[in-house]
């Protein structure tokens, strides 16, 4: 089980969290201008690195707030010195 540091509540067991996938995926600034391929890229394609991955977690059974963390997908170690709010 992962030990995840919530920036608001501190280190907690993984069961208190839900996963949100890749961090930093911005909504399209001008959705009307997007063609199908660009929409597909936004809706369906996410990074899938073997190594450090910036990802979203929500402390669902705690403060219920979302935050970003960087985790190595090979070792499962969180790499942030300080979790980001």
């Amino acid at each position: 089980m992962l030990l995840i540091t919530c920036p608001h509540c501190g280190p907690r067991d993984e069961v208190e969290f839900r996963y949100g996938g890749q961090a930093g995926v911005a909504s399209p600034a001008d959705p009307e201008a997007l063609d199908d391929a660009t929409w597909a890229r936004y809706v369906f394609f996410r990074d899938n690195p073997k190594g450090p991955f910036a990802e979203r977690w929500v402390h669902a059974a705690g403060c219920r707030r979302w935050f970003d963390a960087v985790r190595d997908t090979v070792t499962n170690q969180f790499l942030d010195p300080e979790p980001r709010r």
Partner: protein
Amino acid sequence: MAATPSPHLPDHPAHLWRNPDPKPAYDVVIVGGGGHGLATAYYLAKNHGITNVAVLERGWLAGGNMARNTAIIRSNYLWDESAAIYEHSLKLWEELPAELDYDILFSQRGVMNLAHSLGDVRAGQRRVSANRLNGLDGEWLEPDDIARICPIVNLSSDVRYPVLGATFQPRGGIAKHDHVAWAYARAADALGVDLIQGCEVTGIDVADGRAVGVQTSRGPISAGRVAIVAAGHASLVAAMAGVALPLQSHPLQALVSELLEPIHPTVVMSNAVHVYVSQAHKGELVMGAGIDSYNSYAQRGSFHVIEHQLAAALELFPIFARAHVLRTWAGIVDVAPDASPIIGPTPVDELFVNCGWGTGGFKATPASGWVMAATLATGEPQELARPYALERFTTGALIDEHGAAGVAH
């Protein structure tokens, strides 16, 4: 209850395959020597006469997900596209022991999907109806029928999620995964395919938008066509050619108990409480879980997933309460947004993918190889594979098998 291994396990042939050095060039290079890669190679040689083929495997043959699945075979998927390809697979399974002259311990003991809520009941009955319209064997079972087929299922109403009914596919079952891989490998090798182990692909050579070969830990290899059949790492291999795939890689955990006397006559799956259980020929109870939520390549998952899975198993099968867990493990599954595979050409000419089988790849092994071989032989998607093109994420013609198909879909 501990039992010795069954005396009926078959002996293996004296010779399985050569271990050739890679040649400088092949007509087709298949990246990935798991079940799907080996089946692709076999059907390329057998169905299409294309034998100048190499299967490149980073580790050893069938040491990835082919060694880590729960060996369940069924075709009772909801959507027409899925039923078509998985039923083709099931028909190939039924011929496979004779065709490959290898006892793969294929056992059509049936697959039961339990319903625990009114929603489950309606979804299950709908799926049975869809299956029958597609010519598949499917039945709806009431609790009395479940007791007749699998007496050890707890049908008490005094449980958190009582069993209200089940779908049943009698032709479903299990096979011995290693034997399947070895059978395909032996047959492909005999037809002239080079199976090259310990050969990691480190790059894909692309010239003028066309794949022309691969770089490997054993030197460069030219290729007329390149097929990426590397479950768990498909997006990483495709990225070597600049091709993005809509895949996320997750751990999928399973476990086995110690060896027990035969007690469990069929395969029982429950989507709602999330466990699937069969009993292997040697006697282990084989149980699978759902995927771990987070992306990972670590081939291990979180303990609470195992705990959740065993809690579900014990509620369904109180008789398992004193069985000891022998071993747990995880494979890495590539999951597409609609939980269906991606098969066919890519934006790079002569580069093809067969990936994204998620949690359901083992049962598909024969058909996956069959349609991929036809696709590689002609350069055009085979008819059963056509709906699974990468373009569906642009056109929106998804094949959503997340919910109705079974556990973890």
